[in-house]
């Protein structure tokens, strides 16, 4: 289990951000070509930095907490890090781009506004037919307006 530690940390990042696409409408996984074109230079630049840093002894990786599989001299977990972190950032960025629309949708689906809620008192035993007519009267036209566009 120890050897999987770095991998599991990365897997947790992917898992936590996964709902951002299907639930909150981020469009990252659904643009695979754009994603690949974005990630390739990023991975290239940062793997290069990493290789130089390791060669110069800035940092090194625990043999105990990595699988031991290396690609071009770096643990493959480190390669994945340069995919996973950008991916999480892109999902966040995309959701924020949709925020105005999400808020509007939440507003439309939200609880009725106060002025509408106050409109219809709870039905009581009716003795006066005119009161019954008043209670059953349609709400202000505004109600119809707020339902537009659904």
């Amino acid at each position, binding site marked *: 289990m120890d050897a999987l530690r770095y991998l599991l940390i990365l897997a947790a990042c992917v898992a936590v951000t996964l709902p951002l696409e299907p639930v909150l409408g981020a469009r990252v996984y659904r643009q695979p070509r754009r994603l690949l074109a974005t990630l390739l230079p990023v991975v290239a630049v940062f793997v290069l930095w990493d290789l130089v840093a390791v060669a110069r002894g800035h940092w090194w990786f625990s043999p105990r907490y990595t699988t031991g599989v290396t690609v071009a001299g770096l643990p493959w977990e480190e390669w994945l890090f340069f995919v996973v972190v950008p991916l999480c950032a892109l999902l*966040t960025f995309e959701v924020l781009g949709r925020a105005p629309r999400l808020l509007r949708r939440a507003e439309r689906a939200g609880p009725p506004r106060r002025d509408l809620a106050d409109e219809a008192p709870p039905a009581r035993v009716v003795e006066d037919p005119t009161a019954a007519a008043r209670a059953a009267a349609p709400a202000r036209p505004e109600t119809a307006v707020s339902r537009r566009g659904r």
Partner: protein
Amino acid sequence: MAAEYTIAAVAAPVAVVALELLVLRTGLLRTARYWITVAISLAFMVPVDGWLTRPDATVVHYAEEQISGVRAPWHIPVEDYGFGLALITLTLLLWQRLRPAGEGGGRDA
């Protein structure tokens, strides 16, 4: 001898910003959407990096003479934030640059 990672961690975000201003010119750095993304991403970086650098089970070890020695919170070298900022910013800049025609400019946040 200077701490090389410290220098690199400062130089990297500066280089990425220079790339934006001189070459890419997406305007991304002027949007609230970018800064909020950075804030959220770096906030989530703390538990991840904290886990990778925890003293009792360290995944990534740093040469003390190559870093400033400032670690916060827990055992995270401050240099990692410069590294992370450069990584996230470069990603978002390229993503914006490759925006398909017809998609908004992202200035709505």
